[in-house]
């Protein structure tokens, strides 16, 4: 698919055919592995691996398949979409600089980017028990899609993706985020409450709202610190 020049152009049909099969088989295998892991990370890995399979999969609704795959182990998975009145490239650029994410993601304390693929994340938790992990970008399509997952050794195994899609008409960009957390052992709800409070879905929704405010209005609306009478 990346072949250039006269010599290879002539053999393009064959090569493409070969590559298609290769990616179908390879990607298919990765998808199967991913699905057997029954996790979003698995699916994302699979999608990153198989270009053609990815096409097929997305047409059949990635989310639905992921949900079906995720049904049994019940990791905590949240998804939210918000429409932002800005072009996709602008939003993608801001998001891709992971170190800026804590500006609007309240549960994050900091993100340190090591290189093009790797970064280190620290999430806030009460009593200074921060939760940390290294994350790796699985797939990165400019102005469209970023997926990532924690690597071995994470305090809480997690993965997710953000997708930027042009909204119909002049309505800006639809930004969809899917996150999943695999919390080891029992105490899932306790660990989750540490990270997100009682309602993770709402927290992610609030994070996205803050992202929208920051991108559109240039600041995040707040009433914290304003005067009030005696409560």
């Amino acid at each position, binding site marked *: 698919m990346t072949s250039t020049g006269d010599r290879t152009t002539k053999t393009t049909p064959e090569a493409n055919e070969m590559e298609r099969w290769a990616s179908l088989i390879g990607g298919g295998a990765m998808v199967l592995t991913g699905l057997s892991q029954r996790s979003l990370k698995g699916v994302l890995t699979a999608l990153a691996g198989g270009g053609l399979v990815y096409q097929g999969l997305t047409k059949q609704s990635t989310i639905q398949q992921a949900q079906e795959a995720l049904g049994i182990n019940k990791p905590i998975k949240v998804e939210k979409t918000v*429409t932002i*009145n800005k072009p996709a490239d602008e939003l993608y650029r801001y998001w891709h600089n992971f170190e800026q994410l804590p500006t609007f993601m309240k549960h994050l304390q900091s993100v340190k980017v090591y290189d093009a693929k790797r970064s280190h994340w620290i999430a806030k938790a009460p009593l200074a028990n921060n939760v940390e992990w290294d994350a790796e970008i699985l797939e990165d399509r400019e102005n469209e899609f970023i997926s990532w997952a924690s690597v071995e050794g994470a305090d809480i195994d997690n993965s997710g993706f953000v997708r930027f899609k042009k909204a119909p008409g002049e*309505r*800006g960009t639809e930004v969809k985020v899917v996150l999943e957390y695999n919390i080891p052992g029992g105490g899932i709800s306790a660990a989750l409450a540490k990270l997100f409070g009682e309602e993770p879905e*709402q927290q992610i*929704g*609030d994070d996205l*709202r803050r992202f*929208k*405010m920051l991108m*559109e*209005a*240039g*600041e*995040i*609306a*707040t*009433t*914290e*610190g*304003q*005067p*009030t*009478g*005696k*409560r």
Partner: protein
Amino acid sequence: MKAVCWQGANEVRVESVPDPTILNPRDAIIKITSTAICGSDLHIYGGYIPTVQKGDIIGHEFMGEVVEVGREVNNLKIGVDAKRLLPGDRVVVPSTIGCGNCAYCQRDMWSLCDNSNPNSWLEEKLFGNVTSAIYGYSHLLGGYAGAQAEYIRVPFADVGVVKVPSDIPDEKLLFISDAIPTGYMGAELCDIQPGDTVAVWGSGAVGLFAMISAYMMGAEKVIAIDRFPERLEMAKKYAKAEVINYEEVNAGEALKEMTGGRGPDACIDAVGLEAHGVGLEDFYDQTKQKLKLESDRPHVLREMMVACRKGGTLAIMGVYGGFVDKIPLGAAFNKGLTFRMGQMHGQKYMHLLLQQILDGKLDPSFVVTHQLPLAEAAHGYHIFQQKKDNCVKVVLKP
């Protein structure tokens, strides 16, 4: 500073609270010179608006002088004479808070702003979506500190104020903040055609401005419906309205008679959720509301739906907060009525209305019946709610 703080149903108190500060780059701090008690403040006062907390500073109709601006408040982005906003500038501030950059603000639907409400999750759960914040109007609608105070923080000041000349008294300008654009929008939503008859329920400030606006837009006849003789007198005198006192005559029948049996072409609700009816129906709503079985009393809505002519338009500017019972949807459906409503889009109308005042075509100061120092806010609320002392509009002077 001193501020009017809500204490619970039917109780407000002037307390000492800290001065507001700049919290965000687009903020400005305004020293308030005049602030009014709006009819919709009575819904808060009466305890009908959910998520108002003890100690909340209330009030949303105000004007004053800029004393401080945040680092991102550069040029005023709305209006014909966009200029830099500076301390010392005299401004009127619309009650709804818009960011200016979201899809709704950019389409001039400022009260539907996506970005001004920091408690959006709450509203999203109740209403399915978030609307703009309103100063001093519950945590559901943003939780911003209100305007019945000496100072106020104004977010998104570059799009959230209109500069006004210094040689015109407050009473002529103050109502550009809320009552006039609300009334004006009510008339605009009616899509008035030359020769139309427009009926307006409620002859408070918003109702009166809706009547005046209806004439501006070509109405031939305006009918005012209220129960207080002094308000109906004002509607006659200042808005050239024919009047109906619904405690003396059946409003529906009177409207039919006054419109040749057709019914008004458009109806404007300038009352909202604390509407009064008569007889059994009123008893039903009052009781259900007290028992919390319905949140709003929709008497005016019902009457409008039955009174309006076939194919007519209803504009709802009075505030509703939740759920209403026994709505004659059959009448509305079979008569093909159009419903239009919403919190007013202040920033859309303010410059136009300021121009009307500067040109001498509109002098809204007639609605002010009481001017009190801020310290007497509790008295102001009491007489306004009880309609004592012929009270139509109270202006507080911090």
